[in-house]
């Protein structure tokens, strides 16, 4: 990249991160996804300001109202109300905490733990490492939802256990990908060179290898996040997740199923919210993946 303030002509190769960023900005869909996700995040953070009502406030005079554009709808409930007279819009806004915020938290915790273990395993050799790989293969071949179901069966369905279950289920995925990435990077020339230079193991890990696997971690993060969102929602849908009256999107969908014939709109907003969230995260992860592939070529 040319820096204009510099008098001398100087070519600087863009860093991998800058390259990826540029590729990102090229694609309008990705940019849109980026903004949509940002809006969803903001909506989640400022739900108390944005939401017209409390998510648990029941309006006895407005049971199962259709959305405002429907002839029977009312302006004060833009997306209608549910069967207990609660404003669906407010519930979806507050629900973002359960359906996006908590998965995000679970993913971050899982990432920290998983990356640490994965890095450690990636640096170690021999039996220890191959045992771990095989063990992870077993755990990973079992669907995360199934494992989460088992954990919920042990601990009972509450918000805490669902969080524990999802975090536990995600950790092996991080270990696996980080371990593999370390494994491939470890034998590359630049690492060997640094090693010959006498860098400490710690330095090697943090300053030499880690920057080069950031993208792998980020992709894994987006993948884990969408898994976490869908799993928490699926647990809620099965009635084994976050319990009432929490406005979790999966639970709301399960409830709307009971009215799908007479009030199909009640499954509209939570479903769309869930879909849009997962879609934007997948688009971002996917384009990141492609950008990195492009670099490799």
């Amino acid at each position, binding site marked *: 990249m040319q820096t204009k303030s510099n008098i001398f002509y100087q070519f600087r190769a863009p860093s991998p991160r800058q390259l990826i960023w540029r590729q990102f900005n090229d694609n309008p869909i990705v940019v849109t996804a980026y903004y949509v996700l940002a809006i969803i995040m903001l909506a989640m953070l400022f739900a108390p300001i944005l939401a017209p009502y409390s998510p648990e406030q029941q309006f006895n005079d407005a049971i199962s109202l259709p959305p405002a554009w429907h002839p029977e709808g009312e302006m004060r409930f833009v997306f209608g109300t549910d069967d207990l007279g609660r404003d669906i819009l407010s519930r979806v806004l507050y629900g973002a905490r359960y359906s996006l915020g908590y998965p995000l938290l679970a993913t971050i915790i899982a990432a920290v733990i998983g990356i640490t273990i994965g890095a450690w395993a990636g640096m170690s050799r021999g039996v220890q490492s191959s045992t771990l790989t095989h063990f992870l293969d077993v755990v990973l071949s079992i669907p995360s939802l199934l494992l989460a179901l088992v954990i919920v069966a042990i601990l009972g369905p509450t918000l805490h256990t669902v969080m524990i279950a999802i975090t536990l289920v995600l950790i092996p995925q991080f270990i696996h990908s980080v371990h593999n990435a370390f494994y491939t990077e470890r034998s590359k020339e630049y690492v060997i060179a640094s090693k010959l230079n006498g860098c400490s193991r710690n330095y090697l890990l943090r300053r030499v290898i880690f920057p080069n696997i950031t993208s792998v971690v980020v992709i894994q993060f987006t993948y884990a996040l969408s898994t976490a969102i869908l799993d928490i929602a699926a647990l809620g849908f099965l009635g084994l997740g976050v*319990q*009432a009256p929490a406005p979790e999107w999966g639970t709301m969908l399960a409830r709307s199923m009971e009215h799908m014939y007479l009030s199909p709109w009640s499954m509209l907003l939570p479903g769309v919210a869930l879909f849009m969230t997962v879609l934007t995260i997948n688009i971002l992860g996917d384009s990141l993946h492609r950008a990195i592939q492009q670099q490799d070529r």
Partner: protein
Amino acid sequence: MKTPLLLAALSLLAGCGPLELHQDINRDGLVFCSEGNPESFNPQLDTSGTTVDATSAQLYDRLIEYDAEQQTFVPSLAHKWETFDGGRRYRFHLRPNVQFHQTDWFTPTRPLQASDVVFSFTRWLDPHHDYHKVNGGQYPFFRASGLMRLIERVESVNSTTVDFVLTRVDSSFLANLATDFAVILSAEYAQQLTQQGTPELLDRHPIGTGPFQFIEFRKDLLIRYGANANYWQGAPAIKHLVYSITPNANKRMLKLITGECDVIAYPLVTQLEQRDYKPPVKVTQTSSPNIAFWAFNTERPPFDQALVRQALAHAINRPAIVQTIYNGQAQLATGMLPSTSWAYQPSATDYPYDPKRARELLRQAGYPNGFAMTIWAAPIQRVYNPNALRMAELIQADLAQIGVTASIVSYEWNTFRQRLARGEHDTALVGWVADNADPDNFLRPTLSCSAARSGTNRALWCDADFDQQLLSAIQSTDPQDRQRRYQAIETYVMQQVPLVPIASSLRFQAHQHNIFGVELPPYGGIRFVNARRAEHVPL
């Protein structure tokens, strides 16, 4: 091989109209979409409405029946009966040539005899009987109704005559014999099972004298019955009766609309009435003596304090609950007795919605900051409560107003009832359907000490005063005196509030327009013996 099949399926779709059925099967078959799995195939063992619906009137017969319209007892397996010893001995003469079901696993060698009746009753009367302990050894109806103590012994006089010897004179005896629970089993079958070493099959692969016989049960999926060709009243018109188990109320309704169900249990009436369907569906209603209530586990603190219970009763907005949950198809309850009962009078002690008062009472009880508790809500629809889970959410929101944090607990229906009977709950949203018209039947099985032991008293409330009042009320013969006494009992119950009565509701059933003759007796159960499907019905 699978791919062509799928292509065939897709090509079928192209020309696919309404889903046609194989004709013969449709003509003499009937699908009843029920709300849950029966706990057993013998109603002696379980009082749940689901079990009764699935078994009593279909598989079995009783000695006598109660005709609700004529308000008399009519002969069934006993074609006549007489009393001796001033009403302490009843003699029943059995109908000759009544055949038990002939199935793959049992072939009867003889018709119904006195020994079958003796077996059916001594099984639960005598704790040392070989079959007493089989499949749990709990006989909740007989314990709660007092029949266990009322009948001293059952003797066969000869092969067609049976005597019942009672411990005291009791006019409710015949009424109890006519309930869905006093069914007649086959002693010969029991003997065969004992020889095979599989006594537990008695209640799982049932043999009775009823209009239908058991073919198969697949849990969570279906129960399949076939017509009993040798039925003593003549074989039923329906040859194949299937209970399709559909716990979700909305799915049941949709299946009725799409024609996958012919008859459904507990329809969502308001939803059905909001639209016109082709072909039309019909909704019938009957009055049903039932009551939905919110029971507090009085053995657990803080619910052992009447103040706390009163506070919670004031905290919930019952009129709003009745409006939201029942859509006006029910009556707000003021006491345990429904307004249709002859002993009913509006109660003086009521609990209007008053969060302020509730907080004040909680403060007096020593819980100024509230507490945490569980609300157990039935997972499936009942006659008395179309959606207990939703009701629990309303109550949860109301309780949050007075600082009480409630979490909702629900299990699959049978697990739920077993755990309730063990008293694992703090509070529970359940209800009661009376087995007969006597006011005693609303109070004794739900609140007495003996009911607390047999597991039907969800409040686990045992109050000597209450039991005493109940006893004196049933011994009284003057209707006016009885009414006054029940009034006093109601007031006492409402002061103590071991449970908060919520509503009593009508009983509904919905079916396809061409199905006739499905009967809903007022005191529970459903009967398919006279059901039939009409070929051509003018729309």
